[in-house]
């Protein structure tokens, strides 16, 4: 047995095993998407028929405004991702760099609140947005604007917490130098911190985007108009139906909807790894 084998065989064997584990369900999704019967293709691992029917349906059926769903998801997710990073980064910066009374309390509160089971608080959010609807329908219940507000508010804690970790990892020497030069905290923030933090901000932005893109429990309550739905809600109705389920269409739609995310993820994987680790690894 040569040295290469001894040192590398187990590595490859284990990696291949985990790759098969990772790919197995994904393979079945792809298989189902080509199955015209509309059921989950689980009985055999070799496709019986290859049909594009499910894909065609998504684009040709007047009942299924797939492209508007994608558009809605993109609009909502981008709006939430961008605004939550803009608002969250400022707070994270303050938590990380500024000294003020009640800072420790603030951080602890932020951490604690995230541990409250949010799904229970959903009822209250619903009632609040119902009331908002009564005087401002375009940002209340049933509107994309309202949904964006709810996501933005709901993600605030997590994002600030995540961003704070990243900010902590950026060396403080630079902004201390700026301080000596007479820059105010606001100037330090814009001139020194933001340029430095752009890569991490992009990662948080991406994660927030994906999280929003996937959400359906809140979205299905908010977006009831057929053409106003998000992809997650729109696709979920194929299988969440009481009377008929169409796994094929669900699989095809999911594949199409997740391709862009997977591509972004794969092309940014280096940054994502750094970003995810940055929160914990300091200096």
């Amino acid at each position, binding site marked *: 047995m040569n040295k290469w084998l001894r040192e590398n065989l187990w*590595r490859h064997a*284990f*990696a291949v095993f*985990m*790759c098969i584990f*990772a*790919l197995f*369900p994904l393979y*079945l*999704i792809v298989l189902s998407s080509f199955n015209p019967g509309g059921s989950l293709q*689980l*009985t*055999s*691992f070799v496709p019986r028929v290859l049909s594009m029917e499910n894909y065609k349906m998504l684009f040709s059926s007047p009942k299924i405004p797939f492209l508007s769903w994608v558009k809605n998801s993109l609009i909502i997710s981008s709006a939430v991702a961008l605004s939550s990073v803009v*608002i969250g980064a*400022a707070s994270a910066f*303050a938590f990380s760099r500024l000294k*003020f009374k009640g800072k420790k309390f603030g951080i602890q509160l932020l951490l*604690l*609140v*995230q*541990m*409250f*089971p949010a799904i*229970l*608080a959903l*009822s*209250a*959010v619903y009632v*609040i947005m119902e009331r908002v609807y*009564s*005087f401002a329908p375009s*940002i209340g219940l049933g509107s994309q604007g309202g949904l964006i507000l*709810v996501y933005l*508010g*709901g993600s*605030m804690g997590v994002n*600030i917490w995540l961003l704070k*970790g990243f900010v*902590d990892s950026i060396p403080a020497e630079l902004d201390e130098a700026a301080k000596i030069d007479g820059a105010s*905290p*606001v*100037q330090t923030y814009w001139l020194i911190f933001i340029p430095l933090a752009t890569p991490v901000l992009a990662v948080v932005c991406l994660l927030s985007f994906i999280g929003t893109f*996937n959400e359906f*429990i809140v979205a299905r309550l908010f977006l009831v108009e057929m053409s106003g739905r998000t992809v*997650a809600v729109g*696709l979920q109705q194929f299988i969440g139906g009481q009377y008929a389920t169409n796994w094929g269409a*669900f699989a095809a739609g*999911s594949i199409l909807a*997740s391709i862009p995310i*997977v591509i972004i*993820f*794969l092309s940014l*994987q280096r940054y*994502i*790894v*750094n970003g*995810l680790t940055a929160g*914990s*690894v300091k200096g």
Partner: protein
Amino acid sequence: MSSIFRGNFALFLKIAILAGITAILSLLAQSAFASSQIAIGTYLVIAVVVLNFTYFTKVSIPLKFFAPGILFFIAFVIAPIIFTVIMSTYNYQTGNYISKDAAIEQVLIRGVEPDASQTTFDLVSGRSADGSYAVLVSDIANQKFFISTENELTYVETGQLTFNEYGVAITAPGFSVTSVDELATNDAYSKIRYKYSDGYYIIIEAQGVGAVFRQSIAYDAKTDTMKNIQTGQIYVDNKRGNFALEDSPETMLTPGWRAPIWFENYTKLVTDSRVRTPLIKVFIWTIIFATLTVLSTFAFGLLLALALNRKMRGRRIYRSILILPYAMPSIMSILIWAGMFDSEFGAINNLLHTHIAWFSSATFARAAVLLVNLWLGFPYFYLICSGSLQAIPSELLEAAAIDGANPRQVFRRITLPLLLQILSPLLIASFAFNFNNFNLIYLLTGGGPRNTLDGEVAGATDILISYTYQIAFGRNILDFGLASAISVLIFFLVASISFYGLRKSKVMETFG
């Protein structure tokens, strides 16, 4: 460059943005007050004041960074949590859902009874000669016709009327017919109780149809009681959100309202064995589930990171594939897994040539949940571990190797402790996340299997949050008050576990 942030242009920009935000928020506040949403209006006014003070004065520099975040945080995170905590002290469940005022109104609407023959009439809505709301009623069976207002009933001779093809009177002297458009937009006419006889009156049931009723339940605001007018029975507020008969408290009027019962929902958690027993069982499984998930995902992630922690052929491809479960929408993958575990036609049984009913046996269902969560979670730890491994200073490892430690010893004595120290906040965060991993349980097993024939209410894979969701939303009979109490309990449990963990790992020190 820096001039953008100083000088008149910056000031102008700041003023323009703030003015815009102020304008929008003030407008919203104004309309909120106009639609009597006082709480929201007040909050918006406070927001306007806080924003303007923060950015136009030098009250506090940190607040300049925090203000927008805090405002969102309070509105959408803190306020709902406070609401939930308050509701945990209420009898808030199916049958006791609305406010007391609304409940009284509903009881009165339902507290009517039809006459013995359940008479209905064809009628036409309009106004009487003096302009008050009136109906022109056709009692076709008896060939009697009359105009009725709230206080008066006047019979009309057949000769003075005109009829449609069904024999319904449509015009009468002195009676002006209301147009359909007005009927559709103005509901005042439908709230009138038009006079009939002996305490009975006519209400408009649908356009052109009236039904004969009398009130059988009346409310006495002074004593806060409901009285059955015909039998004289008195229903009193039972302090639990219902009007009930004094001598037989089981007889209640519906609907009830949500009423404060203080700590009863909490004491139930301890004293009521039907609540307590499943709760303890679920709690234990939740801890096991979260712990095993963190351990397994971390172990596999770390092992992968170690395996791929050197330049080798195919590393990029491996990484691209291994990252896929993390990048795929999790709803999709969980549902596919659920289908794969099906006992009759599932892919797993097909692959293993077994006939295991995965989701009907507690052990197999738990194994399946852990396996799926491993699939979902290992890429995250793989990514993090591989990043962190590179962050460990190589001098440390080299020094150890020179000292004669073999690779295994280096790993156990240096790499692992360092990694654990670096990653402990993320491990704790992962624990807290999985403690409340609702989507996985809800979509994969729905908490099952439940041995319902033996009276089990909690399923074998139910974790606290999915169990709570069942109580609050998932059944036909919902108990939001109890569910709120459980979530407050969950909150304290997770918070103390996480705080203990954080303190141990000394992360808290950096908070100062």
